[in-house]
């Protein structure tokens, strides 16, 4: 995985205007301000300092037209508005400029973007932050007018990550070349996440079927459920705003590294919701487990 781009650092698309860049810089600077209460317990002061430094570095480059142009060239972003540029490919998704490989067993095939947009009007509610195009910048795809590949993949670990129009796409008659090919192991389900419908691998039934109202949730079980759902810790952290170090400590049951009960309860409930488990049950059983170890 390559280092995030300056655009991603500021949560912007490649076609962001100077005003948008300025706004993003000011917003993120205030979020990561060293006195920020909102980040209490979430990140260490060192992490906060690094994030601030990263934001400033990104702003320094992107706010300078010449430096930005050179940077855009170096990462392969074609200036927005140039002939032949598909605006959405660059601008709509902050992650669009960093390609991610499609999930194993899936093939991204040139296809049906326009068909999908028309047929699924009103359903296309995907969050820009979730959107990572599966195609590669290096092939110069943005210079060409043919529609973008249909399949969009967040990451290999994410499994298939298609937009809400997937069902429409599959239901409509398609040419052979438009068919999304799934491997034998790619059993998927459509779920809602952050206002968008995404397709993701079904969790291994054996794990989820074993969970009921009496289940005692351990760190290992949470990890198993997460892995069965094909979600990486990094993705959980990004979606829930719970720090990676805390998630790792939860799964490893490194109780001595975990924060006070009031904070841990919040982390556990948030994590449980992400895994589509009962938040109250997860929090209660995990906290009880920690109490029984008499660490705190």
């Amino acid at each position, binding site marked *: 995985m390559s280092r995030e781009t300056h655009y991603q650092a500021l949560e912007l698309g490649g076609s962001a205007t100077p005003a948008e860049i300025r706004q993003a810089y000011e917003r993120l600077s205030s979020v990561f301000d060293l006195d920020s209460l909102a980040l209490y317990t979430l990140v260490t002061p060192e992490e906060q300092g690094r994030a601030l430094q990263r934001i400033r570095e990104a702003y320094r480059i992107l706010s300078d037209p010449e430096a930005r142009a050179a940077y855009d060239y170096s990462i392969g972003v074609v200036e927005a508005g140039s002939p032949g540029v598909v605006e959405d490919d660059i601008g709509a998704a902050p992650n669009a400029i960093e390609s991610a490989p499609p999930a194993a067993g899936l093939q991204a095939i040139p296809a049906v973007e326009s068909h999908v947009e028309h047929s699924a009007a009103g359903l296309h509610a995907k969050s820009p932050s979730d959107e990572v195009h599966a195609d590669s910048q290096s092939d110069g795809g943005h210079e060409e007018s043919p529609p973008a590949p249909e399949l969009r993949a967040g990451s290999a670990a994410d499994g298939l990550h298609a937009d809400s129009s997937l069902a429409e796409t599959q239901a409509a008659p398609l040419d052979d070349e438009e068919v999304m090919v799934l491997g034998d192991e790619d059993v998927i389900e459509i779920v809602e996440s952050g206002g968008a419908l995404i397709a993701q691998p079904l969790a291994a039934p054996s794990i989820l079927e074993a969970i009921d109202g009496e289940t005692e949730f351990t760190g290992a079980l949470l990890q198993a459920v997460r892995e069965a759902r094909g979600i990486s810790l990094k993705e959980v952290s990004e979606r829930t705003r719970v720090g990676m170090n805390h998630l790792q400590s939860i799964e490893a049951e490194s109780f001595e590294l975990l924060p006070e009960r*009031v904070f841990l*309860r919040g982390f556990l409930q948030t994590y449980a919701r992400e895994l589509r488990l009962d938040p109250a049950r997860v929090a209660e059983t995990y906290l009880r487990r920690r109490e029984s170890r008499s660490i705190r």
Partner: protein
Amino acid sequence: MATDEEKKKANRLARAIASDISLYNEEKIVKGIEADNFFEALEAELEEGRDLYRSRVSPDLFRTSNYYDRAVVDIIVRSRGHIRSKLWL
């Protein structure tokens, strides 16, 4: 008698705790306000937050101030004044 600095730190701690509760319990808070049972729904979180606050400030300051309760109201409840609820009546 608590110094001004101690009071300031206590207030900051109270607000930080309330802020974290607010951040990680959005759904529960909204439902609690909507159903007008906010304090019952968040009882565990609020009490655990209070326990933490109590453990970090002097007994005298804890007894004679209400920074924690004010922080709960200011940060968790008041910021959601747009939610329709009997809580506001």
